[in-house]
């Protein structure tokens, strides 16, 4: 008989199931439930914090609102760099059924090429769902209208507004203003707050003043549902617009200076004598920063890079040229300060000077005859300054050149400023490994040989002579403005050093420079203005030796550079400038002085509203 509880109780055939198996089943169930509870403890207890954070991430989206970049004004509050709206066509893949069909429909409306084609957009694992992908950047107005009008036929495609930088046309002040471009990975490492697609200053003021111009990005914390639909704004931080910059630049003067260099390569720097404010800073040829702001194409980039005239090069502060005879201005002051001669010391110029085995020519073949220091400046007599150089020695020369700011960057608010070079014995030993030759001193004293300077440095030299010996740091940004136009930061003039040169010495140098322009035989007479006394100094610097005066027969890269540095009015200086014409193939008096005159003429037209012009024609 079967063994069962019922049977034992004497009841009829119920034959219940095996109690052992029921117990096993009960145990199995118990163990399973414990296992599930254990796993739940793992999820909710041990890993709970992490999952809580993930669930917050799920529902919270941070929508960044980019700040509006600061505007750049000239000193008269004329807008130089502005922002403009740019329209991007954006596609949300989750809302598009057939990407291929959408793209082909879209291509009928867009004149621009879309950033991708094919049947699926590029997969970006970091893109949250329902975040748009930019299809075409900065589309034309016609394309914008077409896309908006056909919205119904292309679901998932929309137009997004962003802001783009707008630079003045024709490459106006391009080297100085610089440009912005999309941030690259190196920059993102340095500035962690930037995201892919953000714009950052790459060059010029835009780069150097990035922190002020950019402002503070804002954001909205949005609660979204699983389909990315925004439900409500949980928190909001307004974006703060970047500060605007008021430059020291005068747009009219800059324009005129650029026009004066139109068919030449070179640079013009105009400074206010008593502050170091930069009124114009020109490098020519120039380029269009708007190419960079909208994203430069590789062929455009290549043509800029491969242009033999190197338009991207900022000749005004990056270009380093032998200063030629403009250097003599400092040498004259050095000679008097070091008392190696007096104003009345005379030397005779017979067209050259025998020094050791070498004959050093004067630029004037027949020689200048006998002259004193002031005449030597006026006529730029090389032989006179050979004498000066011999007496000063290379160390004396270097000391005074550096006193005027040469050989080191002046610290203008631009990243790409070059230092120029003032050589001395120590420098030659260090870099060339050989001893200084006294013959080399004679080259240096007339601004040849190893010595180089930037046009900015030479403008500062002119300003320093003009203002009585104070070296001001040239500066570009007068003040920064907040969103409501209130001044946030005022940049006052900064003195690099007082040269402490005897005022009488500088007066004599200024007199010499006055004669350069105004005496009957001065080398810079073409800089004369009818109503304003201009003082200046010409310079012609050789690129290779022995070519002086060979003019335009030589290939361009061997032709002389033409210099003119000036200040005006000669008796009460306000403005100083340097003008360099690269590979002009003619003397500074011939080529650079007339350009300087045009610029100064414009300066006085601007500053002297009552200026009655004696004549427009010369």
């Amino acid at each position, binding site marked *: 008989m*079967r063994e069962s509880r*019922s049977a034992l109780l004497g009841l009829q*055939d*119920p*034959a*219940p*199931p*095996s*109690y052992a*198996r*029921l117990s*096993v*089943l*009960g145990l199995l*169930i*118990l163990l*399973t*439930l414990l296992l*599930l*509870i254990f*796993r*739940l*403890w793992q*999820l*909710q*207890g041990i*890993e*709970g*914090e*992490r*999952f*809580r954070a*993930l*669930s*917050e991430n*799920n*529902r919270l989206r941070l929508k960044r609102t980019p700040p509006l970049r600061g505007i750049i004004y000239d000193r008269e509050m004329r807008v130089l760099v502005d922002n403009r709206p740019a329209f991007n066509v954006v596609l949300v893949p989750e809302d598009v059924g057939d990407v291929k069909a959408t793209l082909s429909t879209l291509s009928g409306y867009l004149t621009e090429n879309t950033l991708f084609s094919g049947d699926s957009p590029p997969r970006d694992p970091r893109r949250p*769902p329902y975040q748009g992908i930019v299809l075409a950047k900065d589309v034309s107005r016609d394309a914008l209208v077409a896309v908006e009008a056909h919205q119904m036929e292309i679901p998932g495609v929309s137009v997004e507004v962003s802001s783009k930088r707008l630079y003045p046309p024709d490459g106006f002040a391009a080297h100085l203003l610089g440009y912005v471009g999309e941030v690259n990975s190196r920059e993102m490492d340095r500035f962690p707050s930037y995201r892919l697609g953000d714009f950052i200053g790459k060059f010029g003021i835009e780069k150097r003043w990035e922190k002020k111009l950019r402002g503070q990005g804002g954001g909205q914390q949005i*609660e*979204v*549902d*699983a*389909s990315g639909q925004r*439900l409500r704004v949980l928190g909001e931080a307004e974006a703060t617009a970047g500060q605007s910059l008021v430059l020291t630049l005068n747009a009219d003067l800059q324009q005129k200076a650029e026009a004066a260099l139109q068919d030449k390569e070179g640079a013009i720097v105009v400074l206010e004598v008593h502050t170091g404010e930069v009124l114009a800073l020109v490098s020519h040829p120039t380029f269009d920063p708007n190419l960079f702001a909208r994203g430069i194409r590789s062929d455009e980039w290549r043509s800029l890079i491969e242009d033999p005239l190197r338009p991207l090069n900022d000749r005004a502060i990056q270009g380093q040229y032998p200063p030629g005879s403009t250097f003599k201005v400092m040498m004259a002051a050095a000679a008097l300060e070091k008392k190696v001669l007096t104003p009345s010391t005379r030397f005779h110029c017979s067209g050259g000077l025998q020094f050791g085995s070498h004959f050093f020519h004067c630029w004037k073949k027949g020689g200048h005859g006998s002259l004193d220091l002031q005449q030597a400046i006026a006529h730029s007599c090389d032989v006179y300054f050979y004498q000066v150089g011999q007496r000063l020695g290379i160390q004396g020369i270097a000391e005074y050149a550096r006193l005027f700011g040469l050989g080191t960057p002046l610290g203008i608010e631009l990243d790409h400023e070059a230092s120029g070079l003032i050589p001395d014995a120590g420098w030659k030993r260090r870099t060339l490994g050989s001893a200084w030759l006294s013959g080399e001193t004679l080259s240096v004293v007339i601004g040849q040989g190893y010595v180089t300077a930037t046009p900015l440095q030479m403008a500062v030299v002119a300003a320093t002579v003009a203002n009585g010996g104070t070296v001001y740091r040239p500066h570009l940004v007068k003040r920064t403005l907040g969103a409501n136009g209130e001044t946030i930061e005022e940049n006052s003039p900064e003195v690099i050093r007082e040269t402490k040169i005897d005022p009488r010495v500088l007066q004599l140098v200024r007199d010499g420079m006055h004669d350069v322009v105004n005496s009957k035989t001065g080398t810079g007479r073409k800089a004369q203005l009818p109503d304003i006394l201009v003082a200046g100094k010409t310079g012609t610097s050789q690129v290779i030796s022995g070519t002086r005066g060979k003019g335009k027969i030589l290939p361009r890269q061997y032709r002389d550079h033409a210099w003119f540095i000036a200040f005006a009015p000669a008796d009460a200086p306000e403005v100083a400038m340097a003008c360099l014409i690269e590979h002009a193939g003619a003397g500074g008096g011939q080529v650079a002085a007339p350009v300087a005159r045009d610029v100064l003429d414009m300066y006085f037209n601007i500053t002297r509203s009552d200026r009655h012009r004696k004549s427009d024609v010369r």
Partner: protein
Amino acid sequence: MFDRRFLAHFDWVLLLLVLALLGIGILGVYSATYGGGRHLSPLAIRQLSWAGLGVVGMVIAFAVDYRQFERLGYLFYGLTLVFLLMVPVLGSFGGGARRWINLGVFSLQPSELAKISLLLVLARYFHRVILPQGYGIRELLYPGLLVALPAGLVLAEPNLGTATILGLLFLTIIFTAGVRLSSLTFLGIAAGGVLPLLWRHMKPYQKQRILSFLHPDADPLGTGYHMIQSKITIGSGMFWGKGFLQGTQNRLDFLPEKHTDFIFAVLAEEWGFIGICILFLLYGALLARLLVIAWKARDRFGSLVAVGGAAIVFWQLLINIGMNIGILPVVGVPLPLLSYGGSSLLTMMITMGLALNVSTRRFLF
């Protein structure tokens, strides 16, 4: 027929456990379908009416002497097969498969009814065929056919989840009825051999679910999404939960299928580990009660019916929670008594009614 002993021996414990779980389920569906405002969502109202209908089903299953069901087992079984055969012809679509047939006022999933029918005929078979030395493969051929017919039809719908439950119900019943362990081992090996065949005949979406169970991060926006979001939902509830109607994963729709297959995650998010422990205590007590009923049942049929009821509750619980917490692949199996869904709720209530029946009538004859 109405005996005073009826009230005295009525299994209040089982009834209270069932009603408590039913109540939790309605709260869960209410929260999962809450759209703001003071109104019940249409789905919550429907679940409430299904619960009402379920209570009626339970009362009927309880009121009739369960030995009548033994007799009627094959009638139900036959009807179920007819319904299942009608599904491919008349059935309506849902979730990528034809599973429902429309009965005018409501639609029914015959696959759910198949659980009760199978339970009845299997219990009847093992009630009548008694082998003290245990059942071998030969004796299992007939009950095997009994499960294979509905399971095959359900699998063809396709409804892998319910077919799995039918199979597991079969295994649990033969195990308790006394299948020889050697035969059980043989069955296990045979099943292992069939699995690759099954894999080949699976629908792509079913394969995808299993693949994404193995590698949920491979396609976080596709099929892996369920698994990842479900784990986030449960885990983010932490110990105390986010509070009733406060679950962000739930309310912001990050959790798909939340009122049906993922109702557990909704509860876990809003009530936390503490709430889940209470839920487990209730389920544990329910299962224990069903096993006790099986243990004490008056006859073998009643005992196996109670075991079958426990098996359905247990396996659905395991598979559903297993997929909610990411230890089992996503197959559509409702959480017993809690998930939204009329057929499944009705089936559970009838099954519980049968268990009540067995429990109460053990003294009556």
